[in-house]
């Protein structure tokens, strides 16, 4: 530790630390936020955002963030603490004492924990006039959150004790903590806790009266399907963690290339927050936005994720992507009997999803086998042609598709299993949030699947083919096979999106499947960052949001038809200032870097020469 000038440069790790603290505080603020009513959960959320409560937490988060960054800098020797000689801090003295404490000390710790927990529970509780009154403090005992805080405080005390009682930072956890059943059950409980936090109806949350089985749906927490889904999700995660722990050693774990340089713990927390926001935020939106996040944003996110497989992972330029979207939609229309030709059996739209996947996958393979031998521009032209063929067929084959006048009415999704009563009864224009949640339920597993696909053998083979097909072939990787695979996976994703949109709009017109849709989706992928699932999601959400936002807040007279002009402008700006996309994947970013340095090509699209080295 030399006496260096304090440098005020923050590296990635500092930013991560700070952001985690701040995000944690924000999450706490949201979770402990103001009261709502069953009819209007968190009705006053807008006002509450500017309340002292939320700001209290944010200030707390900011303080915590700066403190921890400072401490980290000092520990790394980059900054100097004003205190030159390290003196035994209050904490370490306390820690020594804690390390050797007996039963009576624990009793005292417990009492202190209860008091702290009561105060905390009171401060973070719903708004009431007489805060900090004795009656109210005692009333906190009726709330489960108080017990949560007690456990939390004791946990902190215990972790201090452990830290100081072990010499070489060896932590002596009780053996049962490591056992399988403990971890699985604990994860399930964590899932349950998350369900508790994610439930919008605040006043009764954290109180015992909340855990009822009966009553109106908002009251009966224990008969909520989401409660059990979250708990099951936790159970699944726990079981997976246990399994993964057995399989992977720490040695190979550090070999995984990751998008962010953060620990698994932080990653998990970030995903948790994202999920929470995705589930909760739409409830506070106006009906317009509730519609828009499905129809204008969500569907395009989904399409973009599918196209990302083709363009981003496999590096193929596909301009006819909308064809598969249309196929999926018309397959759904066919099986629900909305087309002039009649199906052998009528299916509910839910059940037509597998058929849509199958049809799109097959047509992807059929289109791919002959055309994927082509490279770059030629492939783009062929796919463009395919998109137009489907569009023209949909318009002109009146006896099959109903032509430009549209199909008949496509019925809505219905599902009647205990807990989910998802029936829109043909009122396709209502219940937009239901569609949004349906999309979310489909999309989240798809995201997980695609992420693990990208990190697998298949994803690496795609990267290899994208970069150098000749070298990949010299290792025994068949370029055509993997390209067709990418095409088929992208196509089937698009098909599912087609089913969703066909049900949402109720009637299909060929004009819904024009070339512009393909181009828009391609722009979303490029704008967000090819090959990065997170990037594509962010890109689609940002562009979708801007286009909707302009509808109200444009400084010139903005029409919906003008949007392509804006998309084009945004694309040009992106190409000038951030050609690799908003949030590119690590691999793609490096490829870009190489291409600029003349080391390689950024895409299989810009065909590398004939292949053989002279």
């Amino acid at each position: 530790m030399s006496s260096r000038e304090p440098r005020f440069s923050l590296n990635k790790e500092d930013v991560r630390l700070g952001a985690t603290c701040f995000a944690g505080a924000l999450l706490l603020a949201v979770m402990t936020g103001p009261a709502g009513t069953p009819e209007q959960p968190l009705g006053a959320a807008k006002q509450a955002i500017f309340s002292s409560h939320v700001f209290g937490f944010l200030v707390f988060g900011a303080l915590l963030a700066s403190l921890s960054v400072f401490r980290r800098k000092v520990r790394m020797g980059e900054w100097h603490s004003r205190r030159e000689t390290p003196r035994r801090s209050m904490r370490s003295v306390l820690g020594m004492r804690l390390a050797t404490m007996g039963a009576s000390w624990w009793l005292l710790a417990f009492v202190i924990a209860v008091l702290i927990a009561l105060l905390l529970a009171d401060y973070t509780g719903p708004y009431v006039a007489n805060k900090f009154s004795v009656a109210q403090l005692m009333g906190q005992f009726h709330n489960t959150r108080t017990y949560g805080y007690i456990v939390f405080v004791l946990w902190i005390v215990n972790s201090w004790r452990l830290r100081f009682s072990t010499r070489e930072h060896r932590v002596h956890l009780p053996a049962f903590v490591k056992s399988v059943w403990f971890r699985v059950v604990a994860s399930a409980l964590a899932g349950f806790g998350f369900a508790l936090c994610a439930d919008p109806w605040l006043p009764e949350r954290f109180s015992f009266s909340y855990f009822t089985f009966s009553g109106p749906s908002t009251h009966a927490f224990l008969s909520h399907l989401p409660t059990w889904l979250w708990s099951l999700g936790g159970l699944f995660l726990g079981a997976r963690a246990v399994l993964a722990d057995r399989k992977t050693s720490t040695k190979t774990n550090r070999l995984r290339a990751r998008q962010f340089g953060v620990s698994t713990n932080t990653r998990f927390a970030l995903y948790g927050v994202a999920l929470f926001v995705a589930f909760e935020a739409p409830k506070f939106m106006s009906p317009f936005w509730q519609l828009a996040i499905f129809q204008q944003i969500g569907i395009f996110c989904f399409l973009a994720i599918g196209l990302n497989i083709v363009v981003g992972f496999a590096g193929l330029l596909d301009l006819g992507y909308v064809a598969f979207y249309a196929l999926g939609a018309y397959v759904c229309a066919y099986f629900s009997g909305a087309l002039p030709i009649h199906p052998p059996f009528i299916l509910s739209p839910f059940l037509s999803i597998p058929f849509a996947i199958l049809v799109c996958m097959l047509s992807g393979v059929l289109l791919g086998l002959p055309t994927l031998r082509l490279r770059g521009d030629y492939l783009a032209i062929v796919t463009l042609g395919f998109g137009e063929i489907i569009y023209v067929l949909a318009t002109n084959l009146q006896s099959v598709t109903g032509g430009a006048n549209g199909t008949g009415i496509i019925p809505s999704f219905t599902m009647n299993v205990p807990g989910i009563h998802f029936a829109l009864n043909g009122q396709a224009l209502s219940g937009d949030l239901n569609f949004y949640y349906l999309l979310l339920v489909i999309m989240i597993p798809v995201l997980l699947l695609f992420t693990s696909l990208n990190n697998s053998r298949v994803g690496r083979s795609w990267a290899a083919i994208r970069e150098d097909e000749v070298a990949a072939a010299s290792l025994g990787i068949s370029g055509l096979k993997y390209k067709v695979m990418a095409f088929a996976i992208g196509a089937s994703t698009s098909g599912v999106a087609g089913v969703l949109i066909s049900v949402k709009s109720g009637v299909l017109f060929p004009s819904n499947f024009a070339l512009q849709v393909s181009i828009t989706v391609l722009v979303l992928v490029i704008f967000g960052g090819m090959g990065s699932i997170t990037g594509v999601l962010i890109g689609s959400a940002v562009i979708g949001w801007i286009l909707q936002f302009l509808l109200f807040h444009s400084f010139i007279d903005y029409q919906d038809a003008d949007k392509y002009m804006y998309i084009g402008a945004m694309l040009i700006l992106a190409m000038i200032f951030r050609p690799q996309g908003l949030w590119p994947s690590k691999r793609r970013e490096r490829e870009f870097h190489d291409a600029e340095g003349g080391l390689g090509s950024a895409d299989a699209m810009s065909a590398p020469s004939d292949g053989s080295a002279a």
Partner: protein
Amino acid sequence: MTNDLIFDVANVTLRFGGVTSLSGVNLQHRRGEILAVIGPNGAGKTSLFNSLTGVYSPQEGSITFNSASGASTSVIGVPPHKVARLGIGRTFQASRLFNALSTFENIKVGVEARQKTGPIGAMLTLPRTRREEQHSDEKALELLEFVGLAHRLNTPADSLPYGDRRRLEIARALGTNPEVLLLDEPAAGTNPSEKLQLAELIRKIAREKAVSVLLIEHDMRLVMSLAERLYVLNFGSVIAEGTPDEIRSNNKVIDAYLGSSDAGSALGSSDA
């Protein structure tokens, strides 16, 4: 005669339009041997390599690959990725690494080319996928240590120095478990100390991995010390064949390289 030959090239002629790149090339590569192909620029060495790996299909002649299991396969007309699966690994003259992938991932791509996991298994991370992933992790680590790149584990391939890129490319080809390894000018652009390491590595491959090595190289000192036998190509045909000593004293070879017979030193006879 057939089974101790890993490659049997007989009368191979390759033309591009009117240009004859290889004419009547005969070459026998014995199993376990380090064989070198030398020749001046444009002699057809890389064309020969590309014919052996299925990139080019020669119009005449035959190329037979005899695998250790006893199967004989003709390589002509077989697409490169299928040739690779027969057990023929290769590197390229200008190194063709997957630049955006890390060192480790580059090797893994090679190892995984032989695995069976499909897209469904990869998405769901089925038990077999996990087993295969574990296997390829271990294999890749082992190969990284074998070629001496273990400290470069997570370095992106594009930021490796030249000598390391060469070794990584060899490791990647070894990942496919080849029976024969074709190295196209592995020492090009490396410095003398890297050349020594490389020669040691190639010997180690032949000895420890029991892989036959077929080598194109311009650095005579390296070739003469490394190869057990040499073929000399000039204008698409073999002009000489034999042990390093025989080649050194072969007048035709000296002519081909220098156009006159008064400077044998070019072929490395000066080093002991």
